């Protein structure tokens, strides 16, 4: 009986998380332009339950918008650690994957060296559709998670 109840609660929680992925307003680089389009009226990420939040205490998905510089990496980590569980990370753009056109720059670090990344989006910059696709991947991960 206890297991059944906990399973039901977990399923409900996962369903709720899946449709309320709120990113904090952290813009790390120029991919923020396409993220702007993502929340604009043409692509409307709110269909998928995404709503940009001013406060990181009320958010659970972090979109790494492109480059993370060494200076920014510290703050990205601070912000990630301040976000409540469960939390997910989408690394957006070629810069966040391996460096893109800035590969070999002295002031850059790939996203995976700073945070655990749940989904990558390729492109420079990725189109809003590609980001939405990554978000649906994260939603699948949430839905099929073990409790």
């Amino acid at each position, binding site marked *: 009986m206890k297991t059944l109840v906990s399973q039901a609660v977990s399923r409900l929680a996962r369903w709720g998380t899946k449709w309320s992925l709120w990113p904090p307003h952290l813009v790390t680089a120029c991919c923020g332009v396409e993220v702007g*389009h993502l929340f604009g009226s043409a692509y409307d990420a709110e269909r998928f339950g995404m709503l940009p939040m001013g406060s990181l205490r009320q958010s659970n998905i972090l979109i790494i918008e492109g480059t993370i510089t060494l200076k920014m990496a510290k703050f990205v980590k601070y912000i990630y650690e301040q976000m409540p569980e469960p939390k997910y990370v989408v690394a957006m753009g070629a810069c966040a994957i391996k460096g893109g056109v800035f590969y070999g720059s002295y002031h850059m670090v790939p996203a995976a060296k700073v945070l655990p990344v749940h989904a990558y989006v390729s492109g420079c910059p990725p189109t809003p559709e590609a980001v939405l696709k990554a978000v649906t991947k994260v939603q699948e991960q949430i839905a099929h998670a073990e409790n």
Partner: protein
Amino acid sequence: MQKTEWPFNLEVGRTFFVQSEEELRGGGRGLTLVVGPQHPGSGHMRLFVVVDGDIIVDVVPDPGFVHRGVEKLAENRPYWTLIPLVEKASIMDSMNITYPLILALEKALGLEPPPRAKYLRVLMAELSRVRTHLYDLALLGVFLGHTTAFMWGFALMDMYAEVFAKIAGARTTIAYPVPGGVRRDVKPDHVEAVKRLLEVTRRKLKDFKTLFLDNPVTKARLEGVGIVDAKKTAELGVVGPFARASGIDYDVRKVHPYDAYGDVDFEVVVEKDGDAWARTLVRWREMYESMSIVEQVLKALPEGDVIDQALLFKNPEYRREGVGGVLGVYTYIYPEPGEYLAVAEATRGATLVHLWATGLQRVHRMRFVTPSWRNLRAMVEAMKGGRLADMPAVYMSFGYFPPEADR
């Protein structure tokens, strides 16, 4: 109040920018607030704001969160790969921000674009100017808490993104110009798309104005806020629409016309007040000027090739409308040794590229001066003496775009 004359009354040994957090010592009357790098607005920079009550006494900016070393990376790669590197500084304004690099490279390589290519460059430059102004206005809306302006601005911008994708193949980073011409020719349906785009923009901007600029709240938030007078603007080296908002009649397109800007007729938009409202109005009126330039360009678009003949003849099997056929030619032409300087008017102001070529295909050094960097000091000065609640309005009225400033 502290003295706010340049070079800013800081202690000996302290730089204008914050080197480390330990520099910020307490003990004064003011309270130091740290704004950013994560804040509800857009842009990733940190401002150390010293407030006395809610009056801003001092602002020390801490840029560099998006410093990616464009200038250093440029030393290690062949000149034709600099275009995508440089345009990442300001991706929705990529045509304008790569313009000075292209002009400098053309001087170095001795290429001259054909008339059609010149007109097409101006066409894309002005479309991207409208787009960037819309972006800045939309974000100004976010900073003022006016989400409708964000939605309208981005809805209009999205149409520009689609037209860019049609003409150049990418939504934002178009890398459209190449030394000696442009990468793709426009087709008749592209011209139709641009015409429709202008028509829709003109129609929608009327509603946008009613919603955003004519809104009494917007005017109350922006009017008389963050005033920088003409003298100070000149002293601090402000460029672009932000200098023109203070009554400085300077536009590189008019002063040193490059490409087809000498052939088109346009007015340099100037406002006198120098406050956030004037800076918004200048950009608003510039959008109409840009649209009129695009219309003139479409009317006078010459026929012919879009790549310099000197390049085409180097490759007998060129494809006229492809990228690969012509770009391959760059691998066997070399820039003349020397220093080359070019200035172009990007959306947020004059952009400068200084190339040192040594006869190799890799430039020795590229100096890249971007407008946001030059407007930063004026932005900080405009915030001082104002109220803390006005800070977001002043911030975005300068259209500050950190990747552009930090390079």
